[in-house]
């Protein structure tokens, strides 16, 4: 009954759902259910409650201090309708950060649930483990890692400003795709201030075991931070040249002296 497509071998060239076969004009049962499962997983990634305690414990196990904040969005459904609330701290969290701020630092690290708490749960610890050696090598001064719930990317601007950071690095759960429900994004903003636009940030996307590896992402981020602090800029004018430094296509373990 099912007409199979004789070009299934081409599937090795693309993650796209090609050569699915058909029954009449329609998808075979297996494919309808496979798609439904992928969509269910992506939906769950959006709606899985953020385990801030668990993430904080993992981050602390790597030797980082942590702080907990939440955005002005009180609930997930409001968060989805009101991106403006996810970009601002709650009054309580603003007070927390203001009280916690000490001397100026080089970097504020923010871990934000974004649109996929599943991504944060899965990728935060292995990514930070890969990134930590670069912090030590470069001698960057860090504020405690801020674990932020109900957060959008721009929340990092207010966090970074309150913690007197020269630059803010925000790890965020990216909008889940059907074939990538747990993808981490990294946003770097020099001189974080409320009102920064996305054109003033650099983004490293698709960080996950099947996408950009933790080692490559950590190297790329470290390269961007060093250049941002040196050139005092992020965004469209800071072009990614880190690929030029790969050794046989692989990221070096540390930055060179350059």
């Amino acid at each position: 009954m099912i007409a199979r497509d004789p070009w299934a071998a081409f599937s090795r060239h693309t993650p796209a759902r090609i050569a699915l076969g058909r029954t009449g004009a329609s998808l075979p049962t297996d494919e309808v259910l496979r798609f439904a499962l992928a969509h269910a997983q992506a939906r769950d990634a959006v709606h899985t409650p953020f385990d801030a305690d668990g993430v904080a414990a993992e981050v602390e196990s790597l030797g980082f201090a942590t702080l907990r904040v939440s955005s002005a969005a009180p609930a997930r459904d409001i968060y989805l309708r009101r991106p403006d609330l996810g970009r601002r701290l709650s009054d309580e969290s603003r007070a927390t950060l203001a009280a916690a701020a000490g001397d100026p630092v080089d970097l504020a690290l923010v871990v934000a649930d974004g649109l996929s708490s599943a991504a944060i749960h899965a990728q935060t610890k292995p990514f930070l483990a890969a990134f930590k050696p670069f912090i030590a090598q470069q001698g960057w001064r860090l504020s405690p890692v801020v674990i932020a719930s109900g957060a959008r990317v721009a929340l990092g601007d207010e966090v970074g400003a309150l913690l007197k950071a020269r630059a803010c690095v925000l790890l965020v759960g990216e909008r889940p795709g059907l074939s990538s429900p747990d993808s981490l994004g990294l946003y770097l903003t020099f001189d974080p201030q409320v009102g920064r636009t996305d054109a003033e940030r650099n983004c490293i996307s698709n960080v996950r075991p099947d996408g950009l590896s933790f080692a490559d992402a950590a190297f790329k981020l470290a390269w961007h931070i060093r250049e941002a602090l040196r050139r005092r800029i992020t965004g469209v004018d800071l072009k990614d040249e880190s690929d030029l430094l790969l050794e046989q296509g692989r990221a070096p373990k540390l930055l060179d002296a350059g």
Partner: protein
Amino acid sequence: MAYVHRIGAKSFVFADLKELMAKATPPRSGDMLAGIAAATAEENVAAKMCLAEVPLKAFLSEALVPYETDEVTRLILDSHDGAAFAPVSAMTVGDFRDFLLSHEATSQVLCDLAPGLTPEMVAAVSKIMRNQDLILVAKKCRVVTRFRNTIGLPGTMAVRLQPNHPTDDAAGVSAAILDGLLYGCGDAVIGINPASDSLPVIDRLLKLMDEVITRFEIPTQSCVLTHVTTSIGLMERGAPVDLVFQSIAGTQGANRSFGIDLKVLAEGADAARALKRGTVGQNAMYFETGQGSALSAGEHHGVDQQTLEARAYGVARAFNPLLVNTVVGFIGPEYLYDGKQIIRAGLEDHFCGKLLGVPLGVDVCYTNHAEADQDDMDTLLTLLGAAGVTYIMGIPGADDVMLNYQSTSFHDALYIRELLGLKRAPEFEAWLERMDITAPGGRLLPADARHPLLGYVAGRAA
């Protein structure tokens, strides 16, 4: 000028036409986000009742976005055709709805009327129309465009073959093109959203598509959906550009946030036409739009997102495009929250575009953080098929692995053809038959492992 409507003892006051339009709009999250939506269900209907009594002429004298500071408003009002408008010039918005649904409003009458209508007029009437009204009137509109085939003929629906790949890999893109062609899709355009904005990468994608189209003499056109200035640069370098793409919006400020203005669109259109790559016509522009883009850019002037979307079609029609599509559910739940809002918006956008004389297709789609699923897409696709949509998207398995959203698939296109008897663009339909991909009548033939397209892609991928 303030508008007032009384229901019993209650008075509803609307400060001006744009407030009245916003409050008359069927509920959606984007207008709520902007703080311009009706506060209650009753206020929403009061605004519709009030809007129904507004003369169409009011839209020629009361600009919703200031004429002095917005070139889209100037384009709309300066190009308004008073003679074409004459037959409906005495009507109110409510009369206009009745007229559109009447048997007197034939396809020819609506065609002749289009240059006399402004986006604000069609947006206004859409707000007091139910879904069935939007479907019935859109079905009567005829918009036919041509490049290497003929798109928009009655009883046809075209499909954009969208073979995106997360790293623009040539073999991956080719595999998806093959999949689409062998499923009978690709008459609207073979159109790639590139992951990269690097010129050499885009140039390579253009050549890849040009080679397939030339080698197999496919009566269709290609497009890489990159910025208009990038396409202009590529044409200067001699790249094989068929259609010039651009995302557009309904205000000057929102267009500026896309890095464009009307002048650069004109440059792109002129450059594409000058190449004369079309064989049966020279409609050489491809535009995408979507409700919420102006609000997203902070350039909405307090005007509701559906009206601004219609104004984007006003921009599009000035450049005689081959294709225009709304990407209706792509922008996210803060603009269209759920399946119900996406379905309504898709029908509105299609109606407004068609009534303005624009070849409107719809990317029937949603993201994973919206309250929607493939059942909602089936519903919208079926309604749009009934409404005579110009084209839809065809994506392998409905899963765009580059843009991370779900649209319609090659199978979905087969479904709607099977259900409603919709044909492809005639030149493309004949090609499929010639290539032994379809049988007479348009149904797919069993796939043959020795098909020359398979050999070609295998050779290219090796």
